[in-house]
C-alpha cells in the first residue's frame, strides 16, 4: 500500500471569493500528473472536505501546467465577512487538501 499523500507529489494554494474557496493543486514533476489526476478526483476531494458541507466541488484541469483547480462552493461559513473561523479566508485549506492519501 502506498503510504504517501498528495503532499508528496504536489503543491497547492488557496484563494477565496465570497463563500467559495478555490484550491490549486500542482504537480512537482510532470511525470506525476496522471497519478495526480487519478487520485485527486472530484469525489475524493468532496469527501475529504465533507465536514465543510460544500454545495458543489468542481475540478478544472490544466494539463499544460500540470495543474488543476478545485472550486469548493459554500465552504467558508459565509466567507471573510461572516465566518467565525480564525482563518476566515480558509487560507489553510490547501494544506488540508494535501493530506489526502494516495490510495
Amino acid at each position, binding site marked *: 500500500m502506498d503510504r504517501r499523500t498528495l503532499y508528496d507529489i504536489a503543491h497547492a494554494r488557496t*484563494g477565496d471569493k465570497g463563500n467559495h474557496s*478555490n484550491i490549486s493543486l500542482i504537480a512537482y514533476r510532470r511525470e506525476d500528473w496522471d497519478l495526480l489526476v487519478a487520485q485527486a478526483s472530484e469525489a475524493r476531494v468532496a469527501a475529504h472536505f465533507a465536514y465543510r458541507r460544500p454545495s458543489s466541488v468542481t475540478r478544472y484541469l490544466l494539463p499544460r501546467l500540470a495543474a488543476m483547480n478545485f472550486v469548493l462552493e459554500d465552504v467558508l461559513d459565509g466567507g471573510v465577512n461572516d*465566518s467565525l473561523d480564525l482563518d476566515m479566508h480558509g487560507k489553510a485549506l490547501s494544506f488540508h487538501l494535501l493530506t489526502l492519501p494516495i490510495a
Partner: protein
Amino acid sequence: METLAIGCGAGFSGDRVDAAAPVVRTLIARGGPAALIFETLAERTLAAAQLARRANPDKGYEPLLEMTLRPVLADCLAHGITIVGNFGAANPGGAARAVAELAQELGLGRPRIAVLGGDDLSEGEGRARVAASLGNAFDADRFVCANAYQGAFEIADAIRAGAQVVVTGRVADPSLTLGPAIAHYGWGRTDWDQLAGATMAGHLLECGAQVSGGYFADPGRKEVPGLEDVGFPIAEIAPDGSTVITKADGTGGLVSAMTVKEQLLYELHDPAAYITPDVVADITAADVEELRPGAVRLSGVRGHPRTPTLKANAFFDGGWFGDAEISYAGPNAEARARLAMEVMRRRLGDVLTLRFDLIGVLSVLGDDAGAMLAAVPPGGATDVRLRVAARTDDEALIDRLHREVTALWTGGPAGGGGVRTAKRRRLTMRSCLVPREALPASFTFAA
C-alpha cells in the same frame, strides 16, 4: 515599440511600506517606459473605508497612503513612472488631496493627479440598481454601501490625458495593470487576446509578494531565500500581451514557474473564463516557462468578449462579532480546556450560537458548527487555548460572552490564564451584477 514594465508596490491594505522603493529603483535602472501599481482594496477593505468616511468626510482612503508613497513619489515623478492605485477606496478625491499635499511637502510641485469615479452605488440611482439586482436579498434597513468593479479603459484615458498619478476607488484588481498597458500600446476595446494577456499579468501582480516568494515557502519542500526581504514583482508586458515576471533587484524571495503557477490560479474559478470588466480571460492554453532563474514567461492567454454586466459588492450591517480566549498548559491541559468549553456551552449555549476552537488541538480547519472538532477524540495536548466566538445583533450578549470567559480565571478549571477578549461590528457582503451602461465611469483631474 519599447516593452512596458509594471511594478507592484502593494498587494493589500496594510502591506509593507518599504516594498515599493526597491521596485522603483529597479524600474529606473532598467530604463524604458514603466508604471507602478498599488492594490490595497480587498473585498471588505472598501466597506470599512465607507464607514471611516462617514465618521470623518476627510478619511475613507487607504490609511497607509502617505507612508506608502513617501519613499517613491519623487523618483516616480522624476522618471515618468505612472502611479496607479486603488488607494482612493471610498474617498478617491480625499486620497488625491493627500497625494498633492505630500508632493508639495516634498517640494515636487503639482503633479497631474487623476481621480476615477463612478464605482459608488451607495446612494440614489446606484442604490436602486443594487436593490433591483439583489431582490429579496436586499435588506434596506441594514444596507451600508455598494461599489461596482470598474475597468481599465478609463485608467488608460486618464494616463493618455497626462495623468502622473491615477487614484481609483473600486476597480477590478488586474485592471490597475491593464490600464497603463492599454495607454502604452493603444489596444482597442476588442483586442481580446492582448487585453486578456495583460489582465493575467495584472492578476499575477495584484497580490504583491504572492508571485515572488510570499505565501509559498514550506521549509524542506519549497525553499525561499531571504523571505524576510521578499522583493515585490515586476511584469514586463510585450505588445502581444504576453508577460515576463521578475522582481526587484537586490531583494530576497523567488520567482519560479512554481510561484507563478500558484499565483496564476489564486482566486480563480473557471480557468477558461476569468471575468473582469475588460475581458474574459482564458488560460487553458497558457504556458508558464522559466526563461532563466528569476524570470518566468506567461504566454498563450486567450481573450473572449467582455460581459454586458459589472460585478458589484453590497455590504449590510451584520451586528456584532466577538470572541474570547483562555489558555491551559501542562499535564491534562487538553482535558481542562475541554472542561472550560463545556462550562461555556452550558452557561451561554441557550442565548448564543457559539463557535469553539481548541488552539493546539484543532482551531483553523474546523467549521463554525463544530462538526470537525466533535470528531476529534480527546487527546493529550499539553498547551491548549480555548477560543469562544459568536455573532449577534445584541452587543450586550458579546459583552456577556467576554465576562463569562474572563470569569473562567477564578471559576473555571485549574490553571487557566491569558484571557483576551475582542469585539467589532460586522459587515456582511452580497455580490450582484449590474448593467454596464448604468455605471458611466469617468475621471477628473484633481484641482
